[in-house]
């Protein structure tokens, strides 16, 4: 039992999360354990988590995408641009925004899977290109977006703001897909041993391209959701998001070499980072410390993980 908890990141991180939350509740009984605060934490990490699900998929397949932060900015800005300057109806603009994200993912995926360009170089280049495009279409940012567009991210259901529901739905759908469909389970095979996967008849290239498309699509969805929640599209949205998301996903059990990770891990990793950020705000720890503390936590978690794995694999 203990073995299982310590070896599966989803359980061990879950345990750490609950313990941290309990201790914080004891230290800040009036400000931390409130419905408002918890829903605020979830709302603040909803965008990151949606992107993290796509990143988890990529990391399982053995790749990663540095352009997701820029895709968030571009999709939000492009959708806002169409609505604000061309008065395009909200549903059409949404479709166009998602389509643009899909095209970015397709380009990334095609060049990486079929032209063998290194994923890091390709997505790094795309990160710059797309950020530039976001600046081009939005200038200093676009305000006063249509009411129904803002309603997507600002409405509430059962007292909880919509981005949280979308986040839970995304995590739920992808957890289901990864558990129940052969198509998605193949990504573990590809991440574990690409050559073997190829020889066993899996269309590795096509699958890799799909992975980048799905990740870009989720980032695009997150971008639309973020600008709808803010009621504005900013070209600076999603800055540094890629590294935050990769950190969350690795905390959640993925490895950079591929083949490992579970979708709920993406949520838990993001939740853990959101929780730490919230605790720092509540305890008024200055912003100078935030990144230092997050970096230290990441290193500590990975080290602990390696240590426990060594120890328990020796026992069993």
């Amino acid at each position, binding site marked *: 039992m203990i073995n299982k908890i310590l070896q599966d990141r989803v359980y061990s991180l879950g345990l750490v999360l609950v313990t941290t939350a309990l201790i914080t509740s004891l230290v800040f009984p009036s*400000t931390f354990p409130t419905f408002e*605060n918890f829903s*605020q934490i979830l709302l603040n990490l909803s965008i990151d988590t949606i992107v993290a699900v796509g990143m988890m998929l990529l990391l399982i397949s053995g790749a990663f995408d540095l352009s997701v932060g820029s895709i968030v900015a571009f999709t939000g800005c492009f959708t806002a641009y169409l609505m604000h300057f061309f008065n395009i109806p909200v549903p059409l603009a949404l479709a166009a925004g998602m389509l643009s994200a899909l095209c970015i993912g397709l380009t990334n995926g095609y060049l990486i899977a079929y032209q063998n360009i290194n994923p890091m170089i390709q997505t790094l280049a795309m990160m710059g290109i797309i950020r530039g495009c976001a600046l081009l279409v939005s200038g200093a940012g676009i305000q006063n977006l249509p009411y129904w567009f803002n309603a997507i991210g600002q409405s509430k259901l059962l*007292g909880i703001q919509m981005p949280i529901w979308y986040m839970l739905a995304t995590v739920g759908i992808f957890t289901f897909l990864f558990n129940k*469909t052969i198509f998605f389970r193949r990504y573990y095979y590809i991440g574990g041993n690409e050559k073997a996967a190829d020889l066993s008849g899996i269309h590795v290239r096509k699958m890799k391209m799909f992975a980048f498309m799905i990740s870009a699509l989720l980032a695009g969805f997150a971008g639309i959701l973020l600008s709808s929640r*803010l009621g504005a599209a900013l070209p600076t949205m999603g800055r540094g998001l890629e590294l935050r998301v990769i950190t969350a996903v690795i905390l959640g059990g993925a490895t950079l070499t591929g083949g490992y990770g579970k979708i709920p891990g993406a949520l838990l990793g993001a939740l853990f980072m959101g929780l730490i950020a919230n605790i720092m705000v509540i305890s008024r720890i200055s912003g100078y410390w*935030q*990144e230092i503390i997050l970096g230290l936590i990441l290193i500590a978690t990975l080290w602990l993980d390696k240590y426990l794995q060594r120890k328990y694999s020796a026992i069993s």
Partner: protein
Amino acid sequence: MKLKLPHLKVYSVFSLFGALFLLSVSCELPPRNQSAAVAARASNPEPVSIDNEEYVMVTTAVTMPMYVNHDQAAFRRWGKKMNVKVSILGPAEWDVPAQINTIEEVIGTRPTGLLINGTDPAIAQVINKAVAAGIPTVVYDSDIPGSNRHAFLGTDWYEIGRMQGEEMVKLTGGKGKIAYMGILGLTNMDQGFQGLLDVLKKYPDIEVIGKYDDKANVEEAAKITSDVLAAHPDIAGFCGFDSNSGPGIALAVREAGKAGKIKITTVDWEPEHLQLVKDGVIQMLAGQKRELFTWYGAQFLYDMVHHTNPLAQNDARAGITSVPYIINTGLLKITAENVDEFINR
């Protein structure tokens, strides 16, 4: 049970319907306009506590030296003088959504007053949320139109651009090629660019050759400058709009051996800017009085909470505030003539 690929379609249709269903039953839509937020303010929310007074500043790019040395230093000094707790929060990077998230989380902890760096119009919503929660809220640096903030202190960025433009005209005798740079995509900087262009367009002999994005990065500003110098060896001057533009432009101009010949005006007055003016590389700095933003901003919050100058029996109930609505702190013009006063301060 394992499913095959064709079933994916079924699931995507299901999930689409699920999403649509969620949307359709979503019962609570956001308010149509600002009136709801205003109504919330008028409904006299629970007043903030002054037993454990705590004033919180939320900015973005909290580690930026200019913010640390001016805004935050003055805010801390104020806290010490008034003997109240002050806290400074916000993301380390320039990340407006993260600043919004921080403000949202701070509102829940009910500080005595909120001092917010007006980084982008998009923070209007969360400012209104703080005001609706009954927290005195002052915005500094750039105003946030459409927000219900109680007071604003800052500089007119259009004026910063105009000041640079007028000085550049004087320095170049109203003729020659001019380039300018800053961070593209920021509202206040766009106003600064506009101020500069509005002055320069009155002089037909001045040719504006380009607007560049130095990404608030010294190396980038230096690279742009040397590229522009290579393409236009006869350039007359450069104008900078962010803290790192000036040092970057100065670096490249110096390396080209054209210090003093090519005129430079820029913003901010960090020690390195002042030294560059002293060395004759930069001709003018358009400086902000940032200390005043946060010192008086915090004082306004304090005065609101302590009813220092009550204007009605109960200011909040009357729907008024007893502090100034807009304060323009004005600009500093730093040239070789007065630079020593700032170096030796």
